[in-house]
């Protein structure tokens, strides 16, 4: 349990980016986002699914996403989230940053031992 919590903490900041990514194909409700994350991360990330909601609402407060109440296929009132233009830009920025970061880290991790300087 302990090691999993740690990994969750580490990844918590990434949760926002994941939410933005999940919405990049179109509007989703909270459960839909949770299911998407569950599928692509093999159930590893969201120990407590509830933590998704504060993250979502925080994104909404920062106007990265917007929400509307609609009627679901089960004929139930449901809140749907969609990406705003600002959120789309943010996602783009996060992706390019992540790419740079991962390139740099993988280069560092695959580097050979430095030769000694005489």
């Amino acid at each position, binding site marked *: 349990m302990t090691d999993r919590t740690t990994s969750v903490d580490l990844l918590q900041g990434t949760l926002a980016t994941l939410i933005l990514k999940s919405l990049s194909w179109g*509007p*989703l*409700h*909270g*459960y839909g986002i*949770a299911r998407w994350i569950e599928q692509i991360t093999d159930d590893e990330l969201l*120990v*407590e*699914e*509830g*933590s998704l*909601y*504060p993250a979502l*609402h*925080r994104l*909404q*407060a920062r106007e990265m996403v*917007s*929400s*509307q*109440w*609609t*009627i*679901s*296929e089960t004929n*139930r*009132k*449901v*809140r*749907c989230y*969609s990406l705003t233009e600002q959120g789309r830009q943010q996602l783009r920025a996060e992706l390019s940053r992540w790419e740079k970061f991962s390139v740099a880290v993988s280069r560092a991790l695959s580097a050979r031992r430095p030769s000694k300087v005489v």
Partner: protein
Amino acid sequence: MSPAGRPDRRIWRDTRAEAAEEIAFHLEMRARDFRERGMSAADADAAARRRFGNVETISRQVRAIDDESARQKRRTGMWTDFRQDVIYALRGLRRAPSFTAVAVLTLALGIGANTAIFSVINTALLRPLPYADGDRLVFVWNVRDSGQTDNLGPGRMLDLQRGATGFSGFAGIAHISYTLTGAGDPERIPGSSVSSSFFDVLGARPLLGEPFHTNAADPSAVVLSHALWKRRFGADPSIVGRTIALNGRPRVVLAVMRPDFFWPSITARPGASPGPELWVPGGPGDIPRTAIDEDRDMTGNRNAGYLRAVARLKPGVTVAQARAEMGALGDRISRDHPGDGGRSATALAIRDQFFGPVERPLFVLAGVVTLVLAIACANVAGLLLGRGAARRRDLALRRALGATRFRIIRQLLTEATVLSCAGAVAGLALAWWGSTALSAMAPADFIGDQPLHLDVRVLAFALAVSVVCGLAFGAVPALQLSRDALAGALAEGGARSSGSRRAGRARDVLVAIEIAVAAVLLVGSTLFVNSFLRLTRVDVGLDTHNLITFDVNLTGERAQFQAKQVQFYEALQQRLAQVPGVRAAGAAATLPIGGDDFGTGFLPEGYPVPDEASVPRAGYQVVAPGYFAAMGITIKAGRDVRASDTREAAPVALVNEALAREIWPGQDPLGKRVKFDSTETAWTTVVGVVSDIRHLGPSVPPRPEIYQPDSQRSFPFMAFVVRTGPDPYSVIPSLRRAVAELDPTLPLAGLKTMDEHLERSLSKPRFLSTLVAVFGVLAVTLALVGIYAMMAWSVSERRQEFAIRLALGARSPLLVRMVLRKALLLAGAGLIAGLVAARAATGVLTGLLYGIRPTDPAAFAATAGVIALVALAACYVPVRRALRVSPVSLLR
């Protein structure tokens, strides 16, 4: 799942219910998934909850985030809306430069006038008194048999001081002018001899040194005002401890007061004219010294009334209580000491003492400028309505795009306020210029010798006025237009709609109100100008042209004996008469119009005097031979005073015609005899009758006067009058030389022509009538602009109608009649309302007017005429335009 509904833009939301709903949906969906994988319903629910985490905590977090974000949105939303409105308003104003110019100028005049008058009120009435807890100070006055307040005698003052229980401090004050010699020309300086407790009672702190204190005053000390220290001693920082010569005796400078220490000359009539510039402690017994600055012990003296007194109320004691106590105490003292010149005593709050007489004129002025502002606001409201008529489509479009009525009202009000703030900025510039002019013009007892300035309070006032105005004149068009927009003016093709008719009605009402207010102001200014013109035409009873006056105050040994005084005066008068360019010279203890005023009771021989209160009173003048001739006062019967009327000869007097008429109607006053006091043994015989003069100035009718020769009763001070040729000022250097030849240490004080005195006495009515007249003209001009704009608009709206009528053969006169009928109806309604209001309002002017009643029918008739002419004149251009309508161009 597509976003179907409208974006959720509600400001107030039930975040608790929303969070619960959202989480419930999540749990339901998850439980359904679990059931589909074969769990029992109960297990599925429990598993879903486990997987979700703490529902309560998360729901709370979500709500907190939503609430905070909503709060922030509201805040920034309002601000951005406001900014948007302001920018939008500015853009709109820039697009309509002529509208903006007229509106801003109109408002600038209204706000500027208000701000300028407020700066006078700020300086005159609202300034803080430079004393510790100044509103706890009162003045104590004697009450005479006639009910008038007057100075106290030392005995009476001490009785009041000892008997009072409501005061924590008490100080007597006497005004004396001092001759300062050494270091430059001799100069007469207004000063005060005060009880040692004076500075302690006031709680005033000095700039340099330390003033004298209660029961600890070096009799040879002096405290200087800041102004005197700067002017006469070059602001010398080492002045404290130095010795200066006052009235020929050495005095040690103890302290210099702060620049804001303000102490007017205190007279029985309230007022705040510039006062003493130095203070010395009292004489023996801590009693303030008499005018000749001698060392006589005045303790217990009940004859000389020359003292004013200031006292500090004990904590918890009100002014009314102090007044009651002084009244009771004064009554008792008057019973114990009959004939010490008083019937009772009273107390007056310091603000009433200083500023009482200027309050009403200033409030009248404030009322006048408020009315001017009301007209300005009505004008701008009318302009906005007219402009709004052209903007109806624009506003309707905004409504259609989702703006609420509240939002539109807010935008229109912001626009009005922006306009009015622009007006305020321009108005402040006007007020700044105006207050400079007012500073020069305002009578001394309005603002003392302080300059008017636009301080923070004045700026705040201007800002407040402009915001209130913006809301006031913005409200009518805002309500009108927003309702209009609601009615959907989009569909309207340009024909007159119900909306524009409504706007027209609102504007008609505004114009009628404007005319009514202008009529009130015009009646007021007519009354004031009339009153002032009458004042300037009053015959004061003497020839004021080419007459120089100055005061001489004797000090030292020469002042102590009446014989020596008279000797000196005679010598000086002879010398003055010999100066080239001088036609006649004379002297009197007190001069008419602006000089001091002495009064006396007198007992005519054989005249019934049942009690003390019915003793006849007269102005009391002491004059030298030749005074009447020099002043241009006619001796109607008998003779002038003569040098041979010495103290050894039989006492004689001259009276004026008013006294003769009142006391000896139908009889020859020559040879009649009077006594000034029942204890006197010798009768004073009337040897002459002179023509009436207005001693107290043009506004006070002649009263009985008695003139005695200075050779029989003299004072250590005398005012000299010198009749010259057409250029009185050219003689002044020779007059100075003549005086200096006789005595180089004698200063010439108050050197002025009699015309200057007369001017000064008229300064208050001139100030008031000039301002009221200026504002009246301003009001009428603004009303003219208002009527013109209204007529122009209404004509332009009816151009199609006129064109059709002309095409159908209507004659021009008919159209002219149509336009004029409307204008005159409005003007008539406004005028009647205005005259009725004026009839009710001008009552407040009683006492401020001279020789004309506030209900003067001529003033009302003149106003009606002017307003009717103005209304007609305002119609001229619009009517001409209506007639020039080309039917073809408009019908197309």
